[in-house]
Every structure is written in C-alpha cells, then in structure tokens.
C-alpha cells in the first residue's frame, strides 16, 4: 500500500498551507485520497508555519499533525539554520527509508544530522526552489509550486493534468482562504500579474521545471511506501 505522510515546514508568506491544499486537491482530482491539516499560531511573515498532508491510493483515516513522517519538505533554509520550526530538529520523528526535500542552494545540514539521516536510510534531495521561482515566475511566491512540483515529480502519484486542475481551482475557482493574510497576498500577486491566467501559467511552468529536475537528476521513484 502506498502512503506518504508528509510534514511541510516553512515560514509565513511562503504558501505552505496553500500548497498543502493544492497537494490534497490534486490527489482528489486523480480520484485518490488525501487528508490535510494546517498548523499555525498567530501567523506572520517569516514565522514558522507547518502543514501536514497524507496522500495514498487507499482511504486514509488518520487525523492531526504528522508526528512520524516519511516525507519532510523544508520550504525555507531558515527552518534548519535558524530553527524556525515547531519540530526540532527538522527530522524529528522521521521514519526509516523516508524522503526529505529541502529548498536550498547549498548543503545546510550539519554533519551530525547527516549521520542520523544516513542511519535512517533517508533520501535527501536539495534544490533551489526559490531561485527557480524567481527565474521562471519572477516572484519567490512560487517557491511552494516548485516544492510540490518536485514532490510529484519524484513520486509520480498523480498525473500532470491533476496538478493543473488543483492549481486552477486554487487560483480561478472557489475562493479559498487559508488565513487572513492570504487575501492580501492574493491581491498583491494578482496586481503583479494583471491577469489570473498569466499567474496560473507561470505557476505551471515552475511545476514543469521541477518535474524536469526530478527526471534529470534521476530522483524519480515509483516505489511503494508504507507507513
């Protein structure tokens, strides 16, 4: 049985909760299963934000935060370097044979942490999600798209059209409010792009690029995970 229990850690303003919803909706569009739980306090820019998503091709009953993940996605290097996280160290609870995706230009994992990750037989993938977002979409607000793009690019659990449907729903469909700040962010980014369609296209380009990276670097896997 395939089951990914994902913990996403990032900072306020990066679209952690929004991308968790897109992950879940992409699974739903593919006729598969997902549950998601956001977690934030009085959120503000650059304060820790986490979201938890469980995805599977089987029904999922579990609720609440993912304490023992087999996938960890780090949206901002400061989660690790400044400890901006609800869960310290960043890999706490990580199960054996798990997957860690980190948005960073350089290796930021201290040696003793590397030892633990190796002992747990973890696959660690680092890639510059923010840089890709800036290069392709012209805004670091698309960092979250690069991150979920890479996750789906590695795992291939849904088709590209399902991701597109979920992104389209998010930006063109029913108004969805992850938090109070989302509305302000949305209008800021809409002004930037003038047209929602353009925004949608840029986001999809970022996701496509992440897919390509997963392929080029030989990270694609379609192994069943249990946990």
């Amino acid at each position, binding site marked *: 049985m395939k089951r990914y229990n994902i913990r996403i850690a990032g900072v306020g303003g990066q679209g952690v909760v929004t991308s968790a*919803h897109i992950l879940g909706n992409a699974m739903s569009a593919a006729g598969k299963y997902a549950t998601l739980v956001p977690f934030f306090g009085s959120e503000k820019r650059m304060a820790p934000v986490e979201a938890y998503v469980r995805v599977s091709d089987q029904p999922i009953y579990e609720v609440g935060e993912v304490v023992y993940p087999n996938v960890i996605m780090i949206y901002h290097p400061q989660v690790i370097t400044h400890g901006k996280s609800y869960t310290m160290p960043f890999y706490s*609870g990580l199960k*054996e044979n798990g997957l860690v995706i980190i948005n960073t230009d350089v290796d930021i994992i201290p040696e003793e942490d590397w030892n633990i990750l190796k002992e747990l037989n973890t696959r660690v993938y680092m890639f510059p999600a923010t840089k890709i977002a800036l290069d392709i979409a012209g805004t670091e607000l698309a960092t979250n798209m690069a991150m979920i793009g890479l996750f789906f690019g590695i795992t291939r659990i849904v088709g590209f059209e399902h991701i597109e449907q979920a992104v389209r729903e998010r930006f063109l469909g029913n108004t969805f409010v992850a938090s109070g700040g989302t509305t302000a962010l949305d209008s800021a980014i809409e002004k930037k792009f003038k047209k929602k369609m353009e925004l949608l296209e840029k986001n999809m380009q970022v996701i496509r690029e992440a897919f390509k990276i997963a392929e080029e670097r030989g990270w694609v896997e379609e192994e069943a995970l249990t946990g």
Partner: protein
Amino acid sequence: MPEQRVVDADYLLLEAPRERKFITGAQAMAEAVKRANVDIAIAYPITPQSEVMHLVGDIWAQGYLKDYYRAEEEYGAMSAIAGAVRGGARAFSATSGPGLLRGLEAIASWPGHRIPAVLGVLTRVVNAPLSIQPDNVEIAYLLHSGVVVLHAENQQDVFDFTLASFVISEKVDVYIPIAVCTEGFFVTHAKGYVNMTPEDMKLPPRDPYKAPVPPTDCEIPPARIQRDAPVQKSNFMSYLIHAVWQQEVWSSNIRAMKYIYKYLGGPIEVVNPEAEVFVVASGCAAAQGREAVRYAQLEGLNVGLVKVKSIRPFPEKEIRQALSRAKAVIVPEHNIVGWLAKEVKAAIPNSDIVVGGPRVYGGMTLPVELIMEKIYNALGIKKEKKVVV
C-alpha cells in the same frame, strides 16, 4: 440557491442519491443544515471557533434559512434557541470549548424544557491555560445533561449525524436536543470526502403540534414552568414534578437509541469482530484506532476496533457483547480525564482488561504509534524503536 423541494425524511436520510465532495468538516456541518429546512440559526462566534456558524450565515444569506442573528454571548444564544424552539421553529447553533461552558446552564435546561434542537460542538480546550487546540474534555460536561450526545469521527459522520439529528430530536418519543460533537480543527479545518444528498432536497418542515408538550401552552406541567415556577406554588409539588420529569428526560434519551439504529446504522461500528485486542474509541480517536487496526494487519496482529458513535445514550449492551471475548481493550482519548474509558469499564464485567490510554491533552495530535505501543504491550511484543523523537 437552487429551488428546494421537501422530500420524506426517511427517503432523504436512507435512500436519496449522493454525490461525493472533498470538503472540510465545517462545510459538512453547514451542508447538512442547508438540507434540514432550518428556520433559524443563532450564533455567538467566539474564538476559538470553527467556520460552522459563519458558513451557516452564508447559507442564510443565500435563502436556505428564514432567520439568523448573532446573540450577545453564548448564554443569550442558547437561551434564544430555547425560545425559538418553544415557539415552534427548527433551530441550530454551534459552539466550542469555553463557549459551550458559557452556554451550558441554558443547554442543560433544554431537555427538561423539551427542546428538540441540534447543537454542533466543535471541541476545543477548556481553559486554563489558553490553547486553541481540539481537546475534547468538554464532552464530559455534556454527559449528564440529558442531551443526546453523538461523536463524529470524520467529515462524513459530521454530515450524516447532523442531518439525522434534526429528524431524531423531533420524534415525539424523543423530543430532546442532540449535540453533534467532533474535534475542532482536526475535522472542522481538514478536508475529507463526503457523500451528500442533493442540494435541491430538504427535510419536511418542523410540525410543532407533533409534540409531547404543545408549543407555548403554559398550562400543562411541566411546560407551565415557563410561566410560573412550581416552586412558587408548592415546594412539594415542584420536587415531584422535577423527579418525574428527570425520569422522562432520561427515558427519552434511551428511546433515541432505536432511531440511532435506524438512521445511523447503530450506536457502534465493529471492525474485525473476532480480534483478541480491541481499540474502543470515539471521534478522532476512532480514526486513529482504525489506522492502528491497519498497522496491526500489516504486522499480522489480530486487532479490532469498536467505534462508539453515540455517547448518550451509551451503548452498554452492544459494547459488552462486542468485547465479550477480548483479551485487552485499549481506549485512546483526546482528553486527560478519560471519560470514555470510565464508561467502557463500567459497561463490562471484567474491567481490568481495559487500558485507559493512550491519552493526549491540550488538543495535541494522537499518533497511531502511541496506540501501537499499547497494543504491543497487551500482546507482550518487544519493539526496538528506530525513529528519532
């Protein structure tokens, strides 16, 4: 809004076609209200809250309800619900944590006033210290109020229980309120699949004359207490009336059971009835228990689940039967007092097989791994942990 047509209650609950949507628990509750032909909803949206009353406000604006207003605070909201229902309306409200406790004096008087209403209880911690997470200790405060208490595991349950509760609470031989409880946040703010009846069908309106106590008739005891309390006439009369009515309220509570069988498939659900170790749980803990059964199957262990849907009336007989051959019973809970473990222990003759826990409090998450630890202990299995915590 689509033009809604009234359909037979049994048809709507048991036979009507259903469409699957991926929605939050708060949306599921509002969608049930949308189909329940509700006359009035009265809100006092404190924080911590769910989006339920906000979404019900939205559907009132769309024309699904006749009236909606925000009360001055929870005591006022729950008192106004009593007034609206005594006046013949079908009413709904929802609250959580401190809000439930603030309204509790009025809520606890509903059964005695024969108020058939539905109250959403989206659990949050009871202070202090303040937290906004979904501890469910507040359900313990409802257990002895006479209210029927249902505990939903997920978004689907929230929809089903809420819609059915409007029907069950208005049955003449029940006619007391129903609290539909679920964990805030874990269910209200999270999305899941929900199979829903069509938007253009709704329940028949409430018939206030089909009642054990005619509406606003102030001459028939005990409804007369609305106008002049019996204690003002005679202390002797007042305690007799009270005693008789207490019996009647709790009998009504028990009489709700046959409708829980009819509309919700019974007060419990048993997974793997031949198991030697059982997890007994309600609400979100049942979801975690279901997952524990899956983990156990992967490891070849014989573990089952008894999900308790109805906390009041409490299904003593059913639980006793389901656990008659169990070697150990694990009761995971989202509160420190272990109110469900106490009920389970009292329901079976060999209560020493009940493990009260794992319990998390303050609204923390309840990892399945904690339930597995108790299962390993019960089966005498030693495990070497390989996760970093």
